[in-house]
């Protein structure tokens, strides 16, 4: 990462930090057995970003704190097994999955990642950031079984926040790219879910109005084929389910983001063509390749991937996440909490 690029990342993270400071939000970190988590929690607390809540077995959290060289005094640490909220959470869990016994539910929610999810569901924490020591599948499972999916959404997906150092005369231009990490070959319905969830994420993270482009190798029927058809089907579903969202397609990438090209290729009126800031790729091949090419060829900052589609913000870290990655992810996830006003 170049110096300029690091600065670009810095500035957008600072904007989010300012947005969430003073709102007294809390982030639950269920992997308190990991020293990186303790260090990140310490930084989140010291910088006044949010209230960190560390979960884990007391003896493991203490050992991790010792390894990180951090004093836990003044930090909220909860051992789910001893929590007085366990029965309430178990009851809430049974409420959603009635064929499970209270005893089994209690076992479920005493697992830290599930306990953390129940805290968010119950409003005892605002967001959960996990995955430094758990598989992505576990975090998705825990999110789905606790906070559940957002209304009207049936698919968990992911996005990257891409910061382009120089784009058509603009500096540090942010884009949302999705899905670049989770759904391999989404159906039209899943693609529609990805577009709607991305629109929602963009609303929280971008200063400009989200303009969602459904990308393809074809622009307005310029080339036919099953994949372009799928993108069009997805567009129809989004328009029906989220009529207020500025979404259009199918567009080639240039028609989506370059006004000059859009003027030539998209003859009818469009609120998106040539000015899209949310790019929805037809499948994981396209999405993953696009984000990596943008990252390296345009020297862009790729922040993510972040999960989306849950009823409340849940983030998945990569196992190799650094302390700074954990803090950054926490800040962006907290920025997704809707303001009270």
């Amino acid at each position, binding site marked *: 990462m170049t110096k300029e690029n690091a600065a670009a990342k810095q500035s957008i993270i600072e904007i989010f930090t300012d947005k969430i400071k003073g709102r007294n939000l809390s982030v639950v970190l269920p992997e308190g057995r990991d020293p990186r988590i303790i260090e990140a929690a310490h930084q989140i607390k010291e910088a006044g970003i949010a209230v960190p809540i560390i979960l884990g077995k007391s003896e493991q959290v203490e050992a991790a704190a010792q390894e990180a060289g951090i004093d836990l005094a003044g930090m909220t640490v909860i051992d789910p097994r001893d929590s007085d909220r366990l029965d309430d959470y178990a009851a809430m869990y049974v409420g959603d*999955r009635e064929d*499970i*016994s209270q*005893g*089994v*539910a*209690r*076992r*479920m929610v005493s*697992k830290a*990642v*599930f306990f953390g999810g129940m805290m968010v569901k119950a409003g005892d924490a605002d967001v959960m950031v996990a995955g430094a020591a*758990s*598989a992505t*599948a*576990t975090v998705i*499972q825990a999110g*789905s*079984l606790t906070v559940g999916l957002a209304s009207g959404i049936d698919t968990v997906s992911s996005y990257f926040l891409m910061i382009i150092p120089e784009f058509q005369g603009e500096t540090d231009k942010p884009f949302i790219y999705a899905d670049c990490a989770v759904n391999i070959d989404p159906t039209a319905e899943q693609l529609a879910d990805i577009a709607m969830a991305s629109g929602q994420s963009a609303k929280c993270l971008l200063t400009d109005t989200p303009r969602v482009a459904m990308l393809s190798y074809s622009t307005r029927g310029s080339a036919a084929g099953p994949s372009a058809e799928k993108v069009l089907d997805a567009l129809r579903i989004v328009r029906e389910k989220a009529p207020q969202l500025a979404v259009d397609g199918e567009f080639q990438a240039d028609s989506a983001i370059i006004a000059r090209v859009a003027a030539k290729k998209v003859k009818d009126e469009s609120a998106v063509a040539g000015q899209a800031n949310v790019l929805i790729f037809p499948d994981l091949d396209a999405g993953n390749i696009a984000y990596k090419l943008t990252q390296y060829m345009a020297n862009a900052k790729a922040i993510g991937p972040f999960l989306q589609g849950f009823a409340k913000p849940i983030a998945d870290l990569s196992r190799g996440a650094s302390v700074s990655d954990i803090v950054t992810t926490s800040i962006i996830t907290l920025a997704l909490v809707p303001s009270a006003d």
Partner: protein
Amino acid sequence: MSDVERRIKEVVARTLKIDVGRMTDESRFVEDLGAESIQSVELVAAFEEEFDIEMDDEEALEVKTVGKAIEFISKLL
């Protein structure tokens, strides 16, 4: 069939809503017994509740067949 084996098979049958008779030691939870990913976490919790044990999440992920579950849980008892 040992007592542990019988109880494990009953828990699997109850959680996955299948017949005990369908299971052999080689039966894989996901491929053969049709466990969805959500059910596999609940299956671990159901084993913990039945035997009052604690299964490590990562280790539990490696328990993919009925036979492995019997072996793994027997060691914890």
